[in-house]
């Protein structure tokens, strides 16, 4: 297989990583959602490319689902939610953007080091995995540093993007790709349907820190 094919795969995976960083410093919810949509589109391109390289036509389905659902349907729905709930305002961060970015860089270095042993299997797989792991860890970081329920969900979906990137990078991995995409949709719907509305209904806010009041034992006891 020519080297150019892998270079393009890495370009797309690298693009997703850059967008993960972009997610970290956005301070408006609408912007977070838009960046996530772009990342999902990048994911679908990457998966489609893998389908071509690995000659695995079923991956096209995965790519299409990522494009339609994560690229358009979910972001549109999220935009509607923030409009209806009137929460365009800025996202509160637990730690500042600068520190978050530095931590993110550290996580990327960590993921490169962690997948080092894969090199003995295949150098290309190793680089794919490093990108995927970095996207996963940055998604985790985003979930930790944001206080807002919607941005936490976006963080989780970004983590899921990384998982799908890893799964499609593993050549010939059966069954799991389709199912995992179906699950990401399921999870997103559960979150909309149940949590966002219930949190709003009960607290008049989707700020998760409001939940902290009820942490642990009921102290009035």
């Amino acid at each position, binding site marked *: 297989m020519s080297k150019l094919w892998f270079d393009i795969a890495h370009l797309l995976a690298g693009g997703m990583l850059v967008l993960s960083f972009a997610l970290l410093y956005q301070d408006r919810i609408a912007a977070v959602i838009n960046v996530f949509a772009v990342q999902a589109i990048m994911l679908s391109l990457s998966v489609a490319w893998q389908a071509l390289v690995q000659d695995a036509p079923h991956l096209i389905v995965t790519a299409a689902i990522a494009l339609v659902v994560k690229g358009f349907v979910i972001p549109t729905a999220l935009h509607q939610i923030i409009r209806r709930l009137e929460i365009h305002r800025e996202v509160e961060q637990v730690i500042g953007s600068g520190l978050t970015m530095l931590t993110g860089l550290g996580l990327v270095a960590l993921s490169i080091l962690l997948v080092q042993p*894969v090199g003995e299997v295949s150098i290309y797989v190793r680089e794919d995995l490093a990108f995927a792991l970095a996207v996963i860890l940055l998604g985790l970081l985003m*979930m930790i540093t944001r206080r807002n329920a919607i941005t936490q969900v976006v963080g989780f979906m970004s983590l899921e993007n990384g998982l799908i990137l890893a799964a499609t990078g593993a050549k010939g*991995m059966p069954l799991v790709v389709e199912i995992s995409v179906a699950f990401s949709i399921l999870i997103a719907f559960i979150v909309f349907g149940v949590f966002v509305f219930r949190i709003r209904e009960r607290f008049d806010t989707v700020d998760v820190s409001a939940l902290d009041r009820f942490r642990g034992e009921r102290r009035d006891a």
Partner: protein
Amino acid sequence: MIGPAEAVIVIPAVAVPLLAGVSSYRLGASLNILACTLTLVAATALLFGEHPRSNLLIIDDFNIFLIILTTFVGFTTSIFSATYLAHEIEIGRLTPLFLRFYHAMYQALMCAMNAALVANNIGLMWVGVEVATLSTVMMVGIYRTPEAIEAAWKYFILGSVGIGLAFFGTILIYLVAQDVVGDGLPAMSWDLLVKSAPMLDPKLLSLAFVFLLVGYGTKVGLAPFHAWLPDAHAEGPTPISAVLSGLLLNVALYALLRFKMVLAGNPAAINVGAIMVGLGLMSLVFAAFMLYRRRDIKRLFAYSSIEHMGIATFAFGMGGPLANFAGLLHMTMHSLIKSGIFFAVGHIAQVKGTQRIAAISGISVTHPVLAVLFSFGVIAIAGLPPFGMFTSEFMLVSSTFARQPILSIVLVAGLLVGFGALILRLQDIVFGDPTGKAHPAQASYVPAYVHLMLVLIAGLWLPEPVVEWFRSVAALLG
């Protein structure tokens, strides 16, 4: 033609849409019991006849006992749940519409757990654990109080992250196996993975296990990753606390043990046992001390679940025939006792109208039968003879003392601290001055008594076939 192995997945799967469509909650509860009965029958049928393997399903000594345990506790819980929920409807805490949803989710949970247990495919097993997580998240939030929503949200976020990391570990395992076994389904099946373990790349295998340990360890409720567990147990409906503690934690531990079997076959990989010993002891000691400060009765027993999963993990980490045997017995006993205790706690919370320990003292005066049931449960979970948990803990302590005397001191200290906390609380709840409301109990005590009888029998005399069975599984675990 579907065999019993498929049936334990298909029956609950068919019941999900059926129960979602039934509007009468009485009929729904009966259908729920019926579906659980059929699943239990199918699971028992696994004991007889051949077990053909495929790339998707496998039945061996290890999972057969967990499938039967899961379907049995699922069955008794469905009976308890019918009486429990009738009361919740009566006091208006839940509406019939929510119960339709609840019953559908209950069967989805049973289906997912059985799928995770019979799967011969690490991907399918992952799917099972994920669906089980999602369905329990929905049920934990069902009361829609602020506390319930917080618990469900915490559980959802931590559970999803855990499950995400476990998926990454699964992908890594596939990547390692692909080189040796070849592309496609065979590279994800347990039996082939174990068979080809010595040829797998040890470094990558070790890396994969770290992700799997953090991922599935979160679901087991091991100490640094346990934060979701007490909230989810305390705020959800009590039948769900019973299946969470009694079954779902076991399924997650089962997943870890399967991966441990793969790594055990490769001498160059990291020493999984030592890590599990460390995490297990940490969970035990941490949870034992946390037991003292609980004010909520369901939270108390949730921490006790962390403690006991810690003990089981420690036992499997020690390895060897005796410790593995103790671990398997401990898992079984914990499932039966803990779900039995949650049945009793559910009744107590209903008759007293609260879960606060301070407000439910003196049940021996107001509800003697319930008090006896609850005391037996607590005595059993504290590890006193003649109940089965004493046997497993005694075996574990003696085998640890022979091999690692220092570890056995920590183990015994943890056990005693936990024991003290439980006995202290038992005193208040059962023998204190009666306080609070005293509604007459109107639920059936049969499921809880059946569980405790089984534990008592196991403590006094473990039937020979069961011993043989545990022994062969213990040998399998290495």
